[in-house]
């Protein structure tokens, strides 16, 4: 199968998944008792039945569920996520304002993870069983096990409060491209990237160690190639494939992590907005962010598969 056909087929398989994602998102909020309108009505006992009906009409909560769903879906498809219940602000505006903040944070976390994990994994695999390997393994295991919110709190405790190196609160109104932002980005970025760094290190070490036992490595060594060429030219490329398969899972982890980490550091992204919206019962905002998150994960999965197919042509024939 050519690469193009593989990509097209894989892209088509995304469609039913996205459909399912929209059904679950909608169902989670609409099949549970207590929709936003009944909450509004409960707050104000003077609302008449006619007014309630008008409210329902306005928020798209009247009629059979499937029609509500279709109305919601057709709006979402053109980028209309309805409005906040209390303020009446358009939800899509909130999304567009918050999304870049989360993307910057997540991207920083990814870069940090890769920058730490790939060299660490290579080092550990090459020096298997020695001190450096043991240290890398212990650190990686700790990195997988540490709760990210606790890590964030500890970093604040040490670097902001005791050492005073970083401000405790994030930029109030600094634009993202401002050079100062990098300084504020460091602690949350490291916090969000640690888990990914630890997982990648573990996978990198295992797959690298496995590859080093392959026959082609022995052959390369027998031909008299310097060890550095063997490791970096031959083995590295093959072990990176397993990191790519992990990439989608880790992206989901970073997305979920942003909810917690942004709350720890008061980072004004989608994650902290999500928690705020949940606490204020802004159903439309929660739904929109849930949907955006899921779509992002589906796309990440798709990209990882395509990348995988590029790196390892065998996969296309499955």
């Amino acid at each position: 199968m050519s690469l193009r056909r593989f990509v097209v087929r894989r892209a088509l398989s995304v469609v039913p998944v996205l459909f399912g994602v929209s059904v679950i998102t909608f169902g989670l909020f609409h099949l549970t008792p207590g929709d936003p309108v009944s909450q509004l009505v409960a707050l104000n006992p003077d609302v008449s039945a006619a007014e309630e009906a008008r409210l329902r009409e306005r928020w798209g909560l009247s009629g059979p569920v499937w029609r509500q769903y279709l109305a919601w879906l057709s709006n979402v498809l053109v980028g209309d996520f309805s409005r906040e219940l209390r303020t009446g602000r358009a939800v899509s505006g909130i999304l567009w304002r918050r999304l870049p903040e989360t993307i910057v944070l997540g991207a920083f976390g990814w870069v940090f993870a890769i920058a730490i994990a790939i060299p660490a994994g290579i080092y550990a695999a090459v020096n298997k069983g020695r001190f450096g390997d043991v240290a890398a393994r212990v650190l990686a295991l700790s990195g997988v096990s540490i709760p990210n919110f606790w890590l964030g709190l500890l970093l604040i405790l040490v670097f902001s409060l005791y050492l005073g190196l970083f401000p405790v609160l994030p930029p109030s109104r600094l634009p993202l491209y401002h050079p100062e932002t990098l300084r504020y980005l460091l602690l949350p970025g490291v916090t969000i990237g640690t888990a990914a760094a630890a997982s990648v290190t573990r996978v990198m070490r295992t797959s690298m160690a496995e590859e080093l036992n392959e026959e082609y490595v022995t052959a390369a060594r027998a031909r008299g190639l310097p060890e550095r060429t063997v490791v970096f030219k031959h083995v590295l490329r093959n072990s990176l494939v397993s990191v790519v398969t992990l990439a989608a899972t880790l992206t989901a982890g970073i997305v979920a992590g942003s909810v917690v980490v942004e709350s720890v550091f008061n980072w004004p992204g989608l994650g902290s907005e999500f928690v705020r919206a949940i606490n204020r019962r802004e159903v439309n905002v929660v739904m929109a962010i849930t949907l955006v998150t899921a779509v992002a994960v589906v796309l990440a999965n798709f990209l990882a598969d395509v990348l995988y197919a590029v790196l390892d042509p065998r996969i296309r024939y499955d």
Partner: protein
Amino acid sequence: MTDDDDPGTDTADDDGTRSRARSRTDERGRIRITGFEADRVRDRDSLSEWGDEAAGGTNGGTAAGMDGRWRRGLRRFGRNRSAMTALAVVVSMALVSLLARPVEVLGVVVQPFALAPYDPTTILYLSVDPSVSPYDPPSWRFPMGVDGSGRDLFSRVLVGGRYSISIGFVVVGLTASFGLAYGAIAGYYGGVVDEVMMRIVDVVFAFPGLVLALVVVATLGGGYWQLVIAFSLFGWAGYARLVRGEVLSIAEREYVVAAKAIGARDRAVIRRHVAPNALSPLVVLASLNVGSVVIGVAALGFLGLGMDPGTAEWGTMLDATRETLIQGPGGRIPWWATVYPGGAIFVFVLAMNVIGDGINDALDARAAGVREGKRRREADRGGDES
């Protein structure tokens, strides 16, 4: 990958050749078929993934085969010092949290011990000692200090494990069993059933678990069983996908084909042959998942959406400290209120992950099982001879 690629195989075969040479001299005079070496073939079998059991299955003694592998895994796990240490940590943390305060069920005291010196909800300066003030640093009387509401942190950390640890195991138990059934059915029937069931799994997989749990808790409200539901409702998808993959490879094996050929019903085949064989990787994944559920529960608590505020639960305890930590508590920094509850989560999850890695090593037939199995077989043979 074929068996010959594995360097471990070569050394094992060397051992095998040596032992065969020895046994040959013992059995002098017997007729021997050359070119077919039973030992070697048996080794190959045990090399293929989870193959030991397959061998047990073909002999009609599934239980015996199971037994052997699990016992062997158990022995290997017992020799893994770090895994045993981690197991001790987990067991003692669970015991300590259970014994921290008396447990009452419907007014009857079922567990009378109290390791924790104070009740976790007692505000010390109100009822115990008026000289205690919020955020008192650690001392002999209060080994982990006093929290922002004037409660003994040591007692709270001890009791706090009850929620996190039990929710972790309950959720993993529920999700793993459902995922096992789901994956086994999808993989076994294949075709349209498989296609539809796995698409559903794909959809569930699109949502990060924590996000869904947040949404569920937001609709249902906080509390113990709400948390269990929040993490169970969608947590089974990972197991389902894993089991389905295992089953697809198992369903092709001879003993399943044979069972079907003699007219065994689908349900019997799934229950007796397919599901038990997919169990090993499931156990590994489950043991690694306990830690992530515990972290997830604590994360919800930290976001103020888990248990009621004020509950002595590790994550909820951290939620209360965050504000003072970030705003600065006027002079002193109450590090103890952050370090100890979070440290408890960290130690538990770390230990759980070490156990998971240990189980993985112990049950993974490919990595270390060859030599181990060899030695056992030799030991058995030696036993027969003496």
